[in-house]
Structures are given as C-alpha cells and as structure tokens.
C-alpha cells in the first residue's frame, strides 16, 4: 500500500496501480478524452512536482499529487428563462456526451423557469461514446450509469424544490441506454443494434432518480441519430411546403438531418472530438483561459480573445474555427492545409501545430461532406433549404463567416444559418409543453449510412482541402 497525498487528503493505492484509476476510484476523475491510452495528453497532473500523464503513471511509492481544479464547461442552452414557479411544473433533461442540462418548466405558463447545467461525469471514461461503450464491454456499465444518475440527482437537488411529477429526457441512444441502465454493448460494434429506440418510461425511483415521479424519454431514429436529434427536429418544426430544413449538430458525432414534412434523411458524420478540444495540442473545453475568438488584422497583428479575459491557456472550438479561417485567409495555411512553419504562435504559450490542422481537416470535411451527401442523396438544390439550424454547446458562438471560410459549412447556406444552442433541451421542453406526436419526425426519417453512401467517400477526400480566394 502506498500513500497518495492530494492536498490535505490522503488516499491509498496498491503498488502497480495506475494513478488515473486510483483517482477515479476515489471520485476524483481526471479528464480522459482518449480513454486512458496515453494519446490525448489531457490528463496531466502534478506528481511530486513533475508533470505526469495520470493514465500512464504507475504508482510504486508514496506520492504527492496536485490536481488542477476541474472547471465546469460553459455551456449555453439558449433557454429563455422567464417562467416562474407555479403549481404545475416538470423537468426537461438533456444528457449530452459532454454536458448535462436540466430545465425546470412551468406547465401553467408554458415557460422555462431555470436551467442548471453540469458536466457529464462519464467523461472520465472517455470523451466519445465508443470509448465509453468499450469500457462497459470490458468492465461493467453500472459505474457509468451510477455516475450519471448521481450527477442528475445533484442537479435536481440544486433546484431545491418539492417533488416533480414528470421528467422528460433526451440524449443520444447510448446516453439513454446508460440512463436506464439498459445494456449498451451492442451499439458499439457493427451492425450497431440498440436495445431500444422507442420512447421509454419508468418510475424514477426504480432507476435511482430522486424527487421525481416518472421519467419519459423521447424516441430515436437509429443508433447514431438519437432522441436528442428528434428533439431538435421538434424544436425547429417542419419547413414550409416544398422546402427542407437542415439540422446540423456540431458535436463529436456530428449528426445531420435534412427533412421536410414528407421525407427525411439523417446521418452521423463522426467528426470526432476536435471541436471539443481533444486531438488538438492546445485544445481545451470552453472554460476560462480558452481562446474563443481570433482575428488577424491587415498587418498580421493578432486579436486574441479568451474566456474570462485571462491569459490564454488553450483553444476551444469556436477559437479553433476562427484561427483556421484567419490563417487560410492570410495564406499562412495553404489550400492543402500545409503551413510553412511547423507551428503557428497564437499567444505566449499557445500554439497551433501542423498536426492540429490535419485533425481539423478531417473533422470539418466530415461535417461538410455529410451535409452534401444528404443533399445529393435527396437530390435537391441549396435553394430548397429554408433554414440550416446549427446546434451544439458552442453553436451560438460560432462565427459563421469563419465556419464557411474553413469549409465546415456550405457557403450557399451561410445566410440561412440559425444557431439554436441546445436544441435537444429546447425541443424536449417543447414536447413537455405540447405533448405533440413525435412519430411524425421519426416515421419518415431514413438513416443514411455514410460507409455505403455513393457520395461520401469522394466528397470527404475532396473537402479536406481549403478553398482559397
């Protein structure tokens, strides 16, 4: 047994144990986008005065560890919270892979009273759903279920109110399986069959949710187009006759739906976690010190803005999109993505590397090519699209011009872009209020598998390039 001293606290570990496992066991999870393979370098802690990757550090002596404080990711939901606490209330819950948002809704007023958000504690088991599913397959999924239920209970507790009758829940299919603690392992391997896609209800008590009577989840379309996306469609509603709506969720899985009242196509572009900071050397989530906006003036002087206006520590999604767009415009990044210098200096201790640009090229092309694949499959023109809604934690902060310049979103749709923040939460609230039939969205929506799409592969390669002026 060795002592692990963390501040004033001492915990114990067996010789040979991995530091990150020990921290997790003692409920001090460190962030682990790569799932502990030592590749993302995001789980750095200070051991005896030296920086170490906690997922690689084998304990073989007494050690002293200092953890940098974990911060809540700033996630805006876009909710209009003008409601008040009335007699009839309900909860709407969005379980995101990264963040969790819980809204208290006044059914009498038809308004949101308040939203509280938290970080999904499952992040300690991996940034993306596949890594979490692998964890479940190799260990057990009870742990992932337990931590998320605990976090939801904590959020409920923060509202400090009496018992609520109903909680409506949306999230991707894996999140919903983990919420109800239904075996998610089959979602992880081809042919990716989930146990359930339909709306599901349970006594809150039976699944460990405290202070709520019943939980009801929204329905999903397929394994990778979940209730979160259906909620998003519910929020935007159908376009006018003969038109289409496009809904693009800019998350790790990057779901895209193209739909009208009569038909719909949905897919998951699998962009990867680069907009959330993983795979990028100085990538970080949208917390204080993250570069969220960047521009180059005529004389190449840099205008760097950081969250909380403190010295830059890293780059978050919106910042990354700005940086790439500005460097492409200034020809510092050429049309193939090549930079003459290996790294570009953004500020004193934050840089962008050539490798980061390559990661970005994969992610942006995945999103762009998925959008184009659906449009081509449905065989429609850009003009037929009424609105392009973009959702996701950072959607409202994205500079659309930058997103177009770097080839993440099609230029033809720039003027039709409507950011809607957390469409999953807002669509769930709408469902709670209107109790409308969601099958109109799921029934006609066909899942497009990009692996077998006629269009995707060529588009994906082609759109890795940048368009220069």
């Amino acid at each position, binding site marked *: 047994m060795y002592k692990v001293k963390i501040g004033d606290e001492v915990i114990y570990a067996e010789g040979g144990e991995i530091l990150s496992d020990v921290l997790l066991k003692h409920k001090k999870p460190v962030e682990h986008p790569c799932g502990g393979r*030592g590749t993302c370098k995001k789980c750095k802690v200070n051991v005896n005065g030296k920086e170490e990757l906690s997922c690689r550090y084998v304990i073989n002596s007494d050690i002293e560890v200092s953890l940098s404080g974990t911060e809540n990711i700033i996630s805006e939901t876009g909710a209009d919270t003008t409601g008040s606490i009335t007699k009839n209330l309900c909860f709407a819950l969005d379980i995101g892979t990264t963040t969790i948002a819980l809204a208290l809704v006044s059914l009498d007023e038809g308004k949101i009273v308040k939203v509280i958000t938290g970080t999904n504690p499952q992040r300690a088991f991996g940034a993306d759903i*596949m890594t979490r*599913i692998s964890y479940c397959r190799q260990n057990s999924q009870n742990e992932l279920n337990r931590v998320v239920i605990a976090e939801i209970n904590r959020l409920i507790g923060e509202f400090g109110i009496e018992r609520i009758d109903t909680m409506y829940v949306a999230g991707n299919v894996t999140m919903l399986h983990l919420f109800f603690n239904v075996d998610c392992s089959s979602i*992880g391997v081809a042919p990716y069959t989930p146990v359930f896609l339909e709306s599901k209800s349970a006594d809150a008590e039976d699944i460990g949710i405290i202070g709520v009577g019943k939980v009801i989840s929204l329905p999903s379309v397929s394994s990778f187009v979940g209730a979160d996306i259906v909620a998003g469609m519910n929020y935007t509603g159908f376009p006018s006759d003969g038109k289409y709506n496009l809904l693009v969720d800019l998350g790790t899985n990057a779901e895209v739906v193209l739909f009208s009242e009569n038909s719909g196509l949905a897919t998951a572009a699998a962009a990867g976690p680069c907009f959330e900071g993983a795979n990028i050397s100085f990538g970080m989530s949208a917390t204080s010190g993250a570069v969220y906006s960047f521009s180059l003036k005529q004389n190449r002087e840099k205008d760097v803005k950081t969250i909380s206006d403190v010295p830059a520590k890293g780059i978050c999604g919106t910042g990354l999109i700005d940086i790439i767009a500005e460097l492409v415009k200034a020809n510092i990044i050429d049309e193939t*993505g090549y930079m003459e210098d290996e790294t570009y200096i953004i500020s004193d201790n934050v840089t962008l590397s050539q490798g980061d640009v390559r990661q970005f090229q994969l992610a942006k092309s995945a999103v762009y090519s998925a959008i184009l694949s659906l449009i081509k499959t449905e065989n429609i023109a850009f003009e037929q699209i009424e609105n392009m809604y973009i959702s996701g934690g950072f959607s409202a902060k994205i500079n659309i011009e930058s997103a177009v310049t770097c080839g993440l979103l099609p230029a033809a749709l720039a003027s039709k872009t409507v950011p809607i923040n957390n469409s999953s939460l807002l669509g769930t609230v709408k469902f709670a209020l209107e109790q409308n039939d969601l099958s109109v969205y799921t029934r006609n929506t066909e899942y497009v598998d990009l692996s077998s799409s006629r269009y995707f592969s060529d588009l994906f390669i082609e759109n890795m390039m940048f368009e220069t002026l």
Partner: protein
Amino acid sequence: MSIINEISENLQTGKVKAVKELVQTAINDGIDPSTILNDGLLSGMNVIGEKFKNNEVYVPEVLVAARAMNAGVQLLKPLLIEEGVQAKGRVCIGTVQGDLHDIGKNLVKMMMEGKGIEVIDLGTDVSPETFVNTAIEKDCQIICCSALLTTTMDVMGEVVKCAEKAGIRDKVKIMVGGAPVTQEFCDKIGADCYTSDAASAADAAVELCRSAS
C-alpha cells in the same frame, strides 16, 4: 530534366495523364522497365511518403499521387512480368471485422505498393479467418490489420490467436494500426509491429519482408 525525373515530379503532383504519357515514352525509348518503376514511379511515391510522414502533405495529395503511380504501373506490369521482376514481398491488408473505415488502410496499401511490395487488399469488415486463410493461400509474409474504433481494436488480438491456431504464427508477421491503436496495445495482443502513419508502415514492412527472406 531526365524523363525519369519528370515521371517522379509529375507523380508527386498527381498528374495521371502526364505520368502515363511519360512512362509510355520511356518504354518506347527502350529504358529498362525496372528503372522506370524504381527511379521514376516508386521514388516519386517515396518523396510523397516522406512528406506525408512529416505532415507536409495530407490524404488528398497522397491519393492523387497514388492514382498516378498506379496508372504508370499498369503500363509497366506486362514488361516487368516478362523480365521476371519480383516484388519485395507480399502482404495482405484489411480493416478488421465490424469496422468499415478504410481511408487509413488504403493509404497504407498505397505506401506499401510504393515500396514495391505486392499488396492483397481484403477490403473492410474482414474476419480473422479471412486474414489467416489469405496469408496461407497466397503465401504472405505479413498480415496488416487496420481498426478505427475502440470497439473493434480487439479483433486484432483475435487475428493473432487465429494465426497461432493455424500454426503459421512463426511464418507470418502481424502489423497493426489505426488511430486508436498504440505500441502498448500492439505489445499486449502479441502483434509484431505498430506504426502511427502509413509511410512508416511501409518502411517497416520492407524491413520485415527482408528479414523473412
């Protein structure tokens, strides 16, 4: 510039038509087909491979260069067979069962071909048995497995076991790769070689083939 250099240069910028014409001219001029192959096509692909390794060029450039290389190789093939020119080795490659990501695998294939190795492409969603049976039937020195999903990586371990069961483990090397794969994982499942990029994979394969013969 010599025609051989011109072939190499045009290949590097992916000019399929120019490469084809130049290779044909070189053949007509009576230049030795192996010289055209090695000093023109493969050396051009080599330059691209090195640049790719250093992140100087990316996937699209490698793909267009490989397309140009293949166009040239097609013209040379009958002549090389006539001459009795042997490949540096033979490998089979595929993306493992349950996984359909093939871009990385294709790059590895192209880079290996660029080193003069004969590559049998088994495509995606390849079962351990198919890898092993192909290696036996086609007498491959290396089995190359690619996986992009955390959930399909483990199939690579099954390929190793399957090769053991078939009794060919001492005759065939197993290479593994793909974004989630690490050296540590490679060691854990008992595979022989891991590299993080396609150009290094090709270099490693040349080495493995050399030591096998």
